[in-house]
């Protein structure tokens, strides 16, 4: 039976390394992908990710809403990425929902994906605005986060999550269809 965030945070705060490792395992991909969306170079991305985890270590006994930890991590990663982008002089404007960069940053490498549909999906995701990417990353979690929790951690009204989710997925589908790919996968094609 998987331990709750509350239990893992409490154990990690007492110095329990396996509990901390479990948190890194649970949310490592989320933090990584949120950071990657900001198009920093590899070194800056790794620094932003590491500093995000170090901030969690600082706040281990102070996380008020353990169930909202994914959103906390996403928000913290965003803050660190924005700081680095500013240091590099690459931010044009930034508000709660969007970040406009002066340039596209390093190219995302789709070479590891063999299926054309996967490459199209990867490219389509990259076209989404930051708010949509972060929301979808939080919704991809296992188990999926409750809208109330996502809203709270991102500072969005609960009632806006459903419509925003629908809008973001529509944008994703539109971008996919623009590459000539139909979404979602047809049930008969599942492996």
């Amino acid at each position, binding site marked *: 039976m998987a331990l709750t965030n509350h239990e893992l945070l409490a154990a*990690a*705060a007492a*110095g329990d*390394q396996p509990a*901390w490792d479990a948190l*890194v395992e649970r949310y*490592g*991909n989320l*933090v*990584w*992908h949120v950071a*990657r969306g900001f198009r920093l170079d590899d070194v*800056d991305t*790794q*620094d*932003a*990710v*590491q*500093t995000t*985890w*170090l*901030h969690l*270590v*600082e706040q281990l006994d102070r996380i008020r809403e353990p169930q909202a930890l994914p959103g906390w991590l996403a928000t913290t990663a965003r803050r*660190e990425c*924005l*700081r680095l*982008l*500013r*240091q590099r*002089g690459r*931010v*044009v*404007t*930034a*508000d709660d929902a969007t970040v406009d960069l*002066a340039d596209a940053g390093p190219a*995302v*490498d*789709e070479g*590891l*994906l063999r299926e054309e549909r*996967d490459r199209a*999906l*990867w490219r389509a*995701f990259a076209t989404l605005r930051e708010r949509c990417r972060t929301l*979808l990353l939080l*919704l*991809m979690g296992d188990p999926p986060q409750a809208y109330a929790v996502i809203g709270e951690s991102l500072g969005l009204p609960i*009632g806006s999550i*459903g*419509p925003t989710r*629908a809008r973001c*997925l529509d944008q*994703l*589908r539109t971008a996919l269809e623009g590459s000539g790919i139909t979404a*979602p*996968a047809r*049930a008969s094609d*599942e492996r």
Partner: protein
Amino acid sequence: MTTDPRDDAQDAPLLADLARVLGEADPAPPDTVLAARSALAHRALDAEIAALLTDSDSSDKELAGVRGTGGGPRQLSFAGGVAVVDLEVEGEGRARLVRGQCSPPGVVDVVARGASGSVGIVADDLGQFVVHAAAGPFSLRLSWRDEPRQVDTEWIVL
């Protein structure tokens, strides 16, 4: 507003595909995962966190594009409890020189923690110290020898 259950049924495969594609195309590198695991070793125990108050490389509002100071050293200020730590940072490439000033006065042991490990120094009578560091995550742990005060500066990226 409730979601239409039929929308959820269509969305779930797409989200699952997206999760799979992200994991295949761009997984977190093993070094990054290992580094994240090692972060627990830096937990504060009895230390108070001195929060970052000002950073000449940023501004309060989330507007940017123009650096705060015209080419001078980066200046940072941290505060926690009664402790204040001011830093000036210069450097080129991945090397950094950090000049620090801490208060209140006293004999203060300073441990600089960062990408290249930990370095211990002692601040002088004025609370000043200098340390060489590497670009990347950075935090100072300050301990006042004659008082039960220990402060960790909030992690930043040099």
